[in-house]
């Protein structure tokens, strides 16, 4: 399949590392800043200190992720073990198609026998398991090509560690819950006279949820493109996968396209040989905006703690932006694979997606900076209203 990205799985995993790194900019960047200090050997102590800070946060986020996953599972139909004879037959069929590495996950597969459609998803955070519909199980047992293609897509999610998405949700919950716990502690103990009132707390929480929701949706959609690209690699049949997508289950309702790109976008991605993974405009704009905010914080924040955090954030964002510029070289060949080719940067146009994302991210950035300048003691009201205005305007551009 000439022109298709070659190193899909490697890049999918690296993307997670980068996202996690950006979640802990101070802990990651701090040791390296020490290399430029008068005592560079403090770098070793910096690594240890960062690890001590990161580990409990990671553990807590993983616990929240496991809880979020369990809660999500509670709203889904119950699963059943697949009978041994059927499991052996399905496993043999899948090993023949995808090779020995699929055996372990095939053996631990569970089913929703009451659903006779073709469908699957992955459950479990610490130990991901494939869950297939009853109809899909029959398809796999009979070697149906559509069923195998759907399974290849879910296998890709497992190989790409996409259960990290639930950790992302856990992190959001951690932020919101932590903020409410801190608020209640301050209310009870009155230790912080500048603590937020209830209205400001709700406003700030809503603002954070808006921003995090946009991020979560973008991350989830990109993981679907990665899974599609990998599934095509596993099945070696682009036309069959395109046909499957055309008959794909439409995701309806309010959350219809929140986690998944539309079917037409996914088909376009195939036709463009996954240019969407070679040149991720969203992340370029995001790292530019995040780095700008960090730089402004470093230069103008009065609080040295905030200023230092801004410096770390700016350095991290700069590093990630460099990676994004080099992304086309890392994933594979293609006309837009040169970092500075025309297609490597967002096209400028009122309704183009790049412009819309850029507007949204820069808009959020401006709102944060403006709110901090106008009302440094309590910026939450301005942030909540401003953030909502930016979001509504960006949606109207579509």
């Amino acid at each position, binding site marked *: 399949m000439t022109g298709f990205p070659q190193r899909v799985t490697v890049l999918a995993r690296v993307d997670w590392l980068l996202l996690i790194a950006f979640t802990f900019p101070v802990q990651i960047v701090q040791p390296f800043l020490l290399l430029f200090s008068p005592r560079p050997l403090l770098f070793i102590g910096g690594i240890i200190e960062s690890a001590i800070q990161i580990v409990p946060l990671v553990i807590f986020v993983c616990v929240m992720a496991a809880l979020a996953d369990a809660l999500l599972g509670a709203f889904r139909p119950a699963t059943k073990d697949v009978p041994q004879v059927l499991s052996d037959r399905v496993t043999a069929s899948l090993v023949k198609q995808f090779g020995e590495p699929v055996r372990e996950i095939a053996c631990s597969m569970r089913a929703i026998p009451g659903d006779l459609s073709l469908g699957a*998803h992955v459950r479990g955070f610490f130990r991901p398991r494939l869950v297939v519909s009853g109809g899909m*199980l029959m398809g796999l047992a009979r070697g149906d090509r559509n069923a195998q293609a759907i399974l290849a897509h879910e296998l890709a999610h497992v190989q790409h560690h996409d259960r990290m998405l639930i950790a992302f949700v856990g992190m959001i919950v951690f932020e919101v819950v932590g903020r409410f716990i801190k608020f209640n502690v301050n209310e009870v103990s009155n230790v912080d006279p500048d603590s937020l009132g209830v209205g400001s707390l709700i406003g700030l929480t809503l603002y954070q949820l808006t921003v995090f929701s946009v991020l979560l949706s973008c991350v989830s959609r990109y993981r679907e493109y990665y899974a599609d690209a990998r599934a095509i690699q596993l099945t070696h049949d682009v036309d069959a996968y395109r046909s499957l997508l055309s008959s794909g289950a439409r995701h309806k309702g309010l959350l219809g396209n929140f986690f998944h790109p539309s079917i037409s976008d996914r088909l376009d991605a195939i036709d463009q040989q996954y240019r969407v993974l070679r040149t991720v405009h969203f992340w370029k704009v995001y790292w530019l905006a995040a780095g700008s905010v960090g730089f402004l914080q470093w230069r103008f924040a009065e609080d040295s703690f905030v200023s230092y955090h801004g410096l770390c954030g700016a350095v991290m964002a700069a590093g990630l932006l460099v990676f994004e510029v080099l992304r086309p070289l890392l994933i594979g060949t293609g006309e837009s694979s040169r970092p500075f080719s025309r297609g490597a940067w967002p096209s400028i146009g009122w309704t183009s997606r790049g412009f819309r994302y850029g507007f949204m991210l820069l808009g959020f950035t401006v709102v944060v900076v403006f709110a901090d300048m106008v009302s440094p003691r309590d910026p939450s009201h301005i942030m909540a209203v401003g953030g909502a205005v930016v979001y509504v305007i960006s949606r109207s551009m579509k």
Partner: protein
Amino acid sequence: MNKAQLVHDLTAKALEQIAPEELFLLADYDPTAAQFGATSKGPQGFGAETAIALAMPFLIKFFEKFIEKLAANAADSTCKKIAGYLATNTKAPTPEVSDAIRQELIAAGLPPGKADQAVSAVAAVLHSQRAVLAKT
């Protein structure tokens, strides 16, 4: 034995011969439940709106309709042929009876090719349970 249990048992016996892998689906089958497509919903779910060709739902429909007609002593010609076959001790169905069963399976929704494959198994199941069917 109530009608639902009889339909379940007949379907299970037919599936043992036609499509034993579908037995796993039988216990949880509920045409009124809104589970179709539930597995592919939510984050990282994937599915297709087409479905695998299964024999089970159509066999259930066939046995339900047949038992209803039998109980109502329907004047349906195909039903009468099948009922006449069940009244005999001859295991092997005549071509007319096989054709009648085939027509009823197609009427229940089974594709013609699958119906052809299922005829002898369905006839054998009906004949083996004729005593129970006679009580309906």
